[in-house]
């Protein structure tokens, strides 16, 4: 379904159209669930985040503006923030062991996190800019985006000092800003 149809559906949702909301859910929930599940790992938590996000979308539909990107990126923002809140609030990290996550640094795989995450998705426009970053910067940003890692978790994963990781992320985002023209 294209962007203009999402916009029509969301406009109808803003006026309380339940059928439009149902259609919007059917068309976007699998995409939003993928974001939530990638961050939270646990099916139940990911479903909670998805549920909260759609309740929020129903209430906030009238607040959407084109300045906020496409309807789908706006919806991804909502579910991603909710998933991050759940991630931090439940301290899910403490319940999980690193072994349960894909071990991106295994020698046989020989993939960096950035490359690993690229393989499980289609290419986005922003990838042109991510490709231009120093590989360590792209890795740190990918881990923060797709896994929801904090600075400390990225530094633990990449076995690098906290200050270095913070610098990678800061400089990487600075370069992205230039490339994206923000």
């Amino acid at each position, binding site marked *: 379904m294209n962007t203009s149809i999402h916009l029509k559906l969301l406009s109808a949702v803003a006026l309380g159209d339940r059928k439009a909301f149902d259609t919007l859910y059917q068309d976007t929930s*699998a995409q939003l669930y*993928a974001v939530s599940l990638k961050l939270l790992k646990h099916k139940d938590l990911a479903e909670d985040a998805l549920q909260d996000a759609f309740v929020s979308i129903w209430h906030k539909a009238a607040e959407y*503006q084109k300045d*906020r990107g*496409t309807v*789908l990126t706006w919806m991804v923002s909502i579910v991603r923030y909710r998933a*991050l809140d759940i991630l931090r609030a439940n301290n899910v990290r403490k319940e999980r062991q690193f072994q349960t996550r894909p071990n991106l640094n295994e020698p046989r795989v020989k993939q960096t996190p950035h490359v690993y995450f690229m393989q499980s*998705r289609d*290419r986005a426009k922003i990838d042109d800019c991510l490709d231009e970053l120093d590989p360590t910067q792209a890795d740190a940003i990918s881990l*923060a985006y797709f896994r929801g890692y904090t600075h400390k978790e990225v530094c633990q994963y990449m076995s690098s000092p906290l200050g270095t990781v913070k610098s990678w992320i800061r400089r990487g985002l600075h370069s992205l800003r230039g490339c994206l023209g923000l």
Partner: protein
Amino acid sequence: MKYNQDQLKNALSPEFVLGTLSGRARLRYQRLLMEHKELQKNVWQWESKLNELGTVMTPQQPDARVWRAIEKRLGFIEKNEDNTEPWWHHLWTPGFALASIFMLVTAWLLMTQKQLPIELPAERVAVVQNSNAEALWLIEVQTQNLRIHATDKLPPLNDQDYQLWMIAKDGRPPIPLGLLPQNGMKEIPRSILFNQLDIAALAVSIEPLGGSPNGQPTTVLFTTELVQI
């Protein structure tokens, strides 16, 4: 914060969107976003770019129960017969109605005896009381705003905020109305939902600075009913 706005925009907006700005720094930035449109727009720009990554991930079909749960939460379908209804569904009991009469008297006394300045006539009022029946806030619902007076009985909070919520009779989750003053008087915009929903009660929760981090009350301290005057 000692940063100027350009530094905030350039350094903190992308980290806010990425999620690496966390804890108190994130809450402080959230508050700044409410105050500075320029910062908010910058965050939106970052969201629209970074979150393209979320739109190209391989879709995963959620279980059908998620949609059913959403429909229930939004009141589209009847709740089932289980007794796991949330706390705000039990606010309009007879006991609560009796309490509302007491609230009305208290509100009236506050408004007349203390001669609070009222520039616009209030349609409805509520008094939020503590367990000792001491009035903490007087809330007047006016045509454009909620005018809220904090009393001297209110225990001040240094690192937290009190947040006001609307509890609708249709069972939907509480609707955030704004942060309450800890002293003096404050006006917050009146939500359009005051005209659209039957209101069972107002609730006050205690929250991290800046308000609820997830759009729902963290810890509810008080509830009160609005009364027509």
